[in-house]
């Protein structure tokens, strides 16, 4: 009689959204493995048609409560691309600053509240607080500092109201930004300590040969501007994204799978950025990485938690510099007459590149919209990781496999709300 097992994870915890995992094993070999996203579809691309182009940033922000900036900014950039708008340096700086806020908030949330408990064998950050309350309080303070940047510039942390096509409705005063300075100095130190802490966790020994894809900018650790590069050697402008990546609709998921046309499944997010843009990291981040024993090449998906912490150092420091050197712009936004056209935008959401393309009519109404969020792109490599992780743990109980598989999914900080659009683990051992 064949030894047959089925493992099902029906509700994935500590991710944003709802997904499931189905694994079928026959005689110790994985026959089938599907990571599915069952978040119900919300049809953004369909109902954007006919909306005014100026409404698109706020509407698409509602795709994701965790990374609204990725949508507000990507959509704004695409519209600016159509209208031929170039933003001024102070606006560009403010954009990077508000994005640093989103990264700090999102990374602090994921590193401490969503991911670290896995490495410590705890169910959640509240259990962690019972063991080390001060640590969780520090994590919450760090997260709050990110939110304070968002609130200062955007009015609120979730779905900020201050951003628009061309820049901002109103630029913050120098005094308001300066108020963030002392907290950001503390945040840099605390981030360095975070790298040290998570760098000391035990990592399952898995090395993956990923094809990374990230934004790249010669002068800074790219977040909101740059060209797209891959470890397979591609280097192309954002406008060519759809020439290189296509979306595939598979029966087990409501999120379209994004995959490169050259057939190499690509990986987006912190690991991709770190491997492709190591040279652009500042010295403090590089030192912190080195002290945690992280080499410039990291191919173990479980070490993404350390890379996320290194990125925290980078964005806290970047934010501090912007705050210290800020001068108020003469005008909070750049305007231009509306015209018909097609435009592209792409930024690094905390969990990877988020691409937007729009076509608008001469009256400013949207003709067509296309959005490729990061988690949709990572579904393929997540399945590849899961195969390895499940295979390496086949001697363990279903419960242990389940936890380890969940952890492997959380490596990606998946934003399932974005990707459709929960994890059900369905493990069929027969």
């Amino acid at each position: 009689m064949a030894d047959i097992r089925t493992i099902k994870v029906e509700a994935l915890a500590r991710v944003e959204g709802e997904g499931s995992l189905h694994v079928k094993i026959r005689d110790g070999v994985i026959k089938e493995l599907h990571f599915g996203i069952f978040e119900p579809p919300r049809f953004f691309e369909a109902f954007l048609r006919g909306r005014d182009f100026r409404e698109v940033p706020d509407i698409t922000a509602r795709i994701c409560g965790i990374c609204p900036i990725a949508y507000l900014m990507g959509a704004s950039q695409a519209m600016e691309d159509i209208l031929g708008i170039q933003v001024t340096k102070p606006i560009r700086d403010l954009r990077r600053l508000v994005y640093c806020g989103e990264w700090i908030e999102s990374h602090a949330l994921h590193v401490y509240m969503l991911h670290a408990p896995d490495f410590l064998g705890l169910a959640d950050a509240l259990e962690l607080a019972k063991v080390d309350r001060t640590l969780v309080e520090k994590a919450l303070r760090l997260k709050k500092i990110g939110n304070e940047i968002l609130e200062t510039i955007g009015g609120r942390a979730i779905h900020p109201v201050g951003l628009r096509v061309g820049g901002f409705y109103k630029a913050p005063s120098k005094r308001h930004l300066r108020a963030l300075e002392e907290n950001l100095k503390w945040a840099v130190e605390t981030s360095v300590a975070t790298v040290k802490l998570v760098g000391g966790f035990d990592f399952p020994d898995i090395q993956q040969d990923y094809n990374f894809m990230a934004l790249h900018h010669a002068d800074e650790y790219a977040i909101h501007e740059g060209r797209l590069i891959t470890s397979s050697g591609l280097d192309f402008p954002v406008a060519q994204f759809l020439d290189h990546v296509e979306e595939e609709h598979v029966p087990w998921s409501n999120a379209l799978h994004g995959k490169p046309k050259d057939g190499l499944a690509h990986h987006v997010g912190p690991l991709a950025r770190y491997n492709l843009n190591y040279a652009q990291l500042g010295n403090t981040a590089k030192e912190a990485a080195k002290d945690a024993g992280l080499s410039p090449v990291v191919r173990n998906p479980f070490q993404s938690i350390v890379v996320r912490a290194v990125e925290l150092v980078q964005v806290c420091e970047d934010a501090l510099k912007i705050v210290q050197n800020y001068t108020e712009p003469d005008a909070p936004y750049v305007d231009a007459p509306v015209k018909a056209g097609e435009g592209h935008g792409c930024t690094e959401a905390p969990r990877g590149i988020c691409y937007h393309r729009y076509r608008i009519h001469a009256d400013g109404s949207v003709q067509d919209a296309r959005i490729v969020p990061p988690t949709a792109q990572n579904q393929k490599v997540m399945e590849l990781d899961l195969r390895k992780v499940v295979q390496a743990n086949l001697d363990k109980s279903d419960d242990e496999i389940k936890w380890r598989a969940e952890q492997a999914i959380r490596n990606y900080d998946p934003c399932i709300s974005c990707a459709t659009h929960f994890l059900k683990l369905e493990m069929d051992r027969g």
Partner: protein
Amino acid sequence: MSERKRPKLAVWKFSSCDGCQLTLLDCEDELLALTEEVRISYFLEATRKVEKGPYDVSLVEGSITTPHDIKAIREVRKQSKLLITIGACATAGGIQALRNFKNVKDFIRTVYAHPEYIDTLTTSTAISDHVPVDFELRGCPVNKYQMLEVLNAALNGRKPNIPRHSQCIECKESGTVCRMVAAGTACLGPVTQAGCGTLCPGKDRGCYGCFGPMETPNTAALAGQLLALGQTGRDVHRLFRTYNANADAFRKESDSHG
């Protein structure tokens, strides 16, 4: 944390962006104190620990968009002493209720290559359209202080202190210059329930209606004023048809323009 019996809190998600439940995790200064007062029994965004019902308080985020959602929300209702909906999706259907005005089959074809894989209802509707709801907290997203007030009230058996008046009242109270009067900016403030903290007018832009219709809103009078300010019928139609498009007052007003 003491082992005394704390009320059980569950947080549920339907179709949404996760922002309203994230608001709970965004209570950085209050979260640990809150968990000393309540026992988090079900909150997938924060913990893999799942405890069986019944639950003393359920917070429900998101709208009903699939046949499965209808069954699930009935089960949540059955398991919950108090059911509080949080945010525009749960109280009005959310931005995804824009499908209610269109043909969903066309929508599916626009986004997905294989429409046969997609199982969805033709509408996105509020939780209260399916089960009795004890309190509806507005906002896209909800305001964290209002959320804490509602939880506090629920734990102490009193009515939450959440004003139903318009945003205009709060602009006056905070001394914020009226955008519509001073700059002719289109603003939904006169008909939108207050609660966000005067965010948009504070950023020199008009209110865009995140908190949905106030108590007895005069939407027709506002629409007239917007037209007088030079907005087109289509602009007025779009303005009412966003995050609370399926809330009665906003739906009716948007239907008469555009």
